[in-house]
């Protein structure tokens, strides 16, 4: 090997490896406190820490409700704080979101959770847990809660930034570009009265998908139960009324779940989760006042746009109307 290549291997390449690693480490250190903006939950949490809202009603829920309030205006801006997420963060995520909201804002009168049973029982694991809980909710109190419930082993293994470029550099840099405040209902399209539920648009969910979905009767495990209990306790301490309503469910599944008393069992578990604190929950069901046929859904969890989403929007607006 010529001397120049010897010098290349043992000096230039090694030095370059070290310099590149150090540069990236330095950049990672410089952007370490910038919150990421990978998904809507990141944006929501960022907004919670930076925007003050004093809405009398908090609307929470999973993607069926998020889809509604991110697209259509169901109330005037100042009436509702939109804290909807998708299912991935579950009730554990909702607990932390509410804790952060109540810490920064004036107390609401009502928290309305309009969600599917799946959301209420869901506790994320593995990659979903990492992406939607662990890397999002990083306050000491949140970490302590997760450790207490054995979701977090507490042993964050250190890795140089060069070996986790996406988390250490890309996410914070992209996150640094975000300026979007919390998105309130009222920014979207108007809930027009003339859009009928059966307006054409999108696809209907297949019966095969519904059959598969109907087999999943997710239950509320100990961690989700503890999250529900802590939410009840948090809201009770602050005199906030907690409403839990089942979001629209495809009719055949809804009928089946009524026959098997699945929804009833879920409600019993929720009411019993936190002793007296959860017993005060106002339970409700959007399916009891209006039936949502199977073809109203584009997949088992989401309504078709625009007609059926608007129909749900009218039902939601009517429910919230009495709470301001």
């Amino acid at each position, binding site marked *: 090997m010529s001397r120049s*290549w010897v010098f290349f291997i043992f000096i*230039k390449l090694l030095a*370059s490896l070290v310099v*590149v690693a150090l540069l990236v480490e330095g950049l990672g250190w410089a952007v370490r406190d910038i919150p990421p903006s990978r998904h809507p939950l990141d944006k929501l949490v960022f907004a919670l820490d930076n925007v003050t809202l004093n809405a009398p009603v908090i609307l929470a829920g999973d993607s069926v409700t998020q889809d509604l309030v991110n697209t259509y205006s169901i109330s005037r801006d100042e009436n509702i704080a939109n804290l909807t997420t998708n299912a991935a963060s579950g009730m554990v995520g909702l607990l932390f979101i509410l804790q952060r909201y109540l810490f920064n804002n004036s107390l609401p009168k009502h928290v309305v959770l309009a969600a599917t049973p799946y959301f209420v029982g869901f506790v994320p694991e593995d990659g979903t847990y990492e992406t939607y809980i662990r890397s999002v909710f990083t306050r000491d109190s949140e970490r302590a809660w997760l450790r207490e419930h054995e979701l977090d082993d507490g042993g964050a293994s250190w890795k140089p930034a*060069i070996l*986790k470029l996406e988390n250490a550099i890309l996410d914070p840099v992209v996150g640094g570009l975000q300026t979007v405040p919390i998105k309130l209902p009222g920014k979207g399209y108007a809930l027009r009265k003339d859009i009928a539920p059966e307006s054409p648009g*999108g*696809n209907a969910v297949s019966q095969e998908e519904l059959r598969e979905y109907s087999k999943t009767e997710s239950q509320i495990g100990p961690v989700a139960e503890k999250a529900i209990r802590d939410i009840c306790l948090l809201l009770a301490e602050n005199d906030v009324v907690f409403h839990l309503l089942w979001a629209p469910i495809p009719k055949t599944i809804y009928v089946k779940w009524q026959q098997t008393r699945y929804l009833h069992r879920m409600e019993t578990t929720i009411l019993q989760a936190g002793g007296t604190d959860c017993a005060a929950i106002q339970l409700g069901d959007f399916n009891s006042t209006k039936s949502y046929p199977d073809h109203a859904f*584009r997949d088992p969890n989401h309504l078709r*746009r625009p007609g059926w989403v608007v129909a749900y929007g009218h039902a939601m607006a009517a429910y919230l109307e009495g709470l301001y």
Partner: protein
Amino acid sequence: MLFNSLEFLLIFLPISLLAFHLIRIKYGGKWALYSLIIFSLAFYGWWNYPYLLLLCGTIIINYGFSLLLWKKNNFLILVLAIGFNLALLGYFKYKNFFLENFAYIFNTEWELEPIFIPLAISFFIFQQIAFLIDVQDGRVTRRPFAEFTLFISFFPQLIAGPIVLHREIRQQFEAIGKNEGAGFSFLGPGVVVFSVGLFKKVALADSIAPYSDLAFAIVEKLTLLEAWAAAIAFSLQLYFDFSGYADMAVGLGLMFGIVLPLNFKTPFRATSMIDFWKQWHITMTRFFMMYLYTPIALYMARSADERGLRSVPTFLLAAAIPILGTFLLSGLWHGAAWTFVMFGAVNAIGLIVNHAWKQFGFGKLPALLGWALTMLIIVLSFIFFRADSIEDAHRLIALMFSFGDIVLPNWLSSAAQSVGIPWRTLSLFTTGSYTVRLVAWIVLGVVFVFFLPNIAGMWKSLKPSWRTAGGTAIMLWLAIGLLGRPQNFIYFQF
């Protein structure tokens, strides 16, 4: 073990490299070559050690055939030897395929036990067939058994090629044996070339793989735009996967002071089918050209000449039929499935049209048009390469050309409504962020295809500069940082 596995990078490579060069310096090149045989066999045995017996068995038997051919140059011995190799390949790779088709034709049903295909069997069998033909042709004089063993089992090229000709490597082995080899001379360029290959495989191919894997698993649910995204994503994945692995092979060879032939140039910049196949899987194409296409084409050309045929029939006999036959077999070489045969057929048709266009003097196409047509045929052929069935491939291709059926994803429903395009829940473009990432990888892949120089092909002109060191360091870190992800190697199955 794969080149992009931690056990290879952290254990096997440093130990084998250090041992080889230390033995070479202390005990001489001959012993270093012996050590390389042991490391190569250990490398193969790491994957599944019982199959090491198969590799060693073929080496011993084929060397026996070579001895017979050196002793008595008899065409029958060659036929017997090739028959033995093809029978072995046929049993392990094609037995079930032929029986399934036989059962289908005769409308019977057989319970077929799945056969475990030995790693890289297509590569080491072909290399041995080429060796035997060269022996029979008198191009290879009598060689020692150890050299033959290393020629076949040399681990950088054992798993996925390049398919090396004996004459390309004999002198290099001899030089090492006489302590006159390259020694450490190529170590630096070898590290650079290997790093580029590792980057292509781990950072690019493995990043695109989840998208194309998903798309090809749900072909029946895709729409026009998704079908194009799936086809392009897989084409890029295949290119970075295989060319990355080939670069790693070349780089590893250089680290041991051995120059392996180049397997890829820059095929996605090709402006014709002929040009593409001069740049893609070069050593396999060369094998088929040398040992299959050329003899058939020469025979056919002579036959056409003797019969005084006119230009079109002559072209059909001397070019079209040999190309078709060669590429159908080349397709089958890739895998025992009709999808691979179709892959070969589509390329054959493209090549025949290209040759005919040239032969009958239709004039040169503008480069951009030539490139677009070439890429279209290649991408279509890769759909057959990847699809689980012919039906899936047809479905995907039909989708790609159903321009009246543009559907936007549900998350773009507002935009779709405003421009009057239907929308629905899509299975690949599920969410905005997922779609943006897929498109970003495709764009990044295309940028690398056009702007990343073919380092493996220009290793001799590499300068040991700070710029080279910086680029290598960045690519190495990017690859190492992503090593923990699930990974596979497409050509592993061949």
